[in-house]
């Protein structure tokens, strides 16, 4: 494991748990990490490219991590999305950093 990596757990849309390593030094976000490991079918995640404009990367945060606060555009997009829960976030707005060590997230259903 690269010293710049963090370990995170992603539960895919079929309920399968994946323990993966994500780089903190490639300015990646959670949506991009999911795509790089191909944990969701291409074309069903990151449709807008990561601009908080489509909600295809919605996920539920299962762990108790203190994540950066939501910006207006993320909050607005989630208010129009489906399957939204209290723990919903857009993966594209979560930057991979050291603080995410041990994070567990679950991908929301496709919509």
């Amino acid at each position, binding site marked *: 494991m690269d010293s710049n990596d963090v370990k995170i757990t992603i539960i895919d849309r079929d309920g399968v748990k994946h323990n993966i390593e994500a780089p903190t030094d490639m300015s990646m976000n959670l949506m991009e990490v999911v795509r790089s490991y191909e944990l969701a079918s291409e074309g069903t995640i990151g*449709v807008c490219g990561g601009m908080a404009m*489509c909600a295809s990367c919605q996920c539920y945060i299962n762990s108790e991590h203190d994540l950066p606060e939501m910006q207006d555009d993320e909050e607005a*997009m989630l*208010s129009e999305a489906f399957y939204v829960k209290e723990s919903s976030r857009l993966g594209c707005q979560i930057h991979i950093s050291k603080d995410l060590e041990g994070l567990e997230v679950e991908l929301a259903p496709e919509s």
Partner: protein
Amino acid sequence: MITTDIIIIGAGPTGLFAVFEAGLLKLKCHLIDALPQPGGQCSEIYPKKPIYDIPAYPEILAGDLTDKLMEQCKQFEPGFTLGERAETIEKKEDGTFIVTTNKGTKHHAPVVAIASGLGSFEPRKPLLDNITDFEDKGVEYIIKEPEIYRNKNVVIAGGGDSALDWVIFLTDVAKSVTLVHRRNEFRGHLDSVEKVQELKNQGKINLITPAEITAIIGNDKVQALEITKKDEAPFNLETDHFIPLFGLSPKLGPIANWGLDIEKNAIKVNNALDYQTNIPGIFAIGDGNIYPGKLKLILCGFHEATLMCQAAYQIINPGKRYVLKYTTVAGVDGFDGTRKEAPKSVVKTID
């Protein structure tokens, strides 16, 4: 029947640039797109966002890129079938194709280029059990004919620009307009938000926030909606129409059943040659294709479109000689009779 040289499915940047490249080879194009306007994602999802990796444009707004591409291909007079989704393809005995849309419009050409990106944009439907039963019976996801709402009661749900714009428009048409949104905040152009605020203050619209539609009630058609305000008991509101506007999401759709090799929701093509699919005469270019090393970038789509046109030329004009010409040297002869050319250099004696 619309007849052309190349049927292009998808009017995004790749499809529009293909029109230009085809035009240089004297091939005419007709584009089909499920959206009501050209530009694909660039116009539908992020027209006001900048793109930084279009060669020679340090920065260009996605909507402006669409405008520039439209201007660039204009003299080749592309045809458009907009607001219709390509549904079926039929290969005739002579090897040509007929592409029919969901509205029955037929297109005939020897070559088909699929430039459909992630797919055709379909409305995102709210998660209400019986909503499909009411489609076109009071539930509409896209407003096509505003006149059907004249003197009717209309409920619009959503918090983005399209919800705000249609609320403003329908206020003058419908008997009553109700806007329901999950939050008090709206994501739209400032002037639209202010206009809706003004309509609310004047009592011209009914604004229900933060709230959600939780059920549709009716027999053959929509008669009422159950609306639940946050932390309150649900209540029913009588209405003739329910228009949920929650954006669009791309779906590969009927193209998946055309017998094309598909991998990872994209169409496999021969990238060593011409981006042809497993069916001769059908090409796939832009974000919707896949090959080893594929990158979903607009600039890669431009390259793929250019090579596809060369192959299309060979199919349409078998054996006919052709040599690559530079536009600077040869100029651009439009199908509309216009000609663009480099100014001739001045030859003059210096005494």
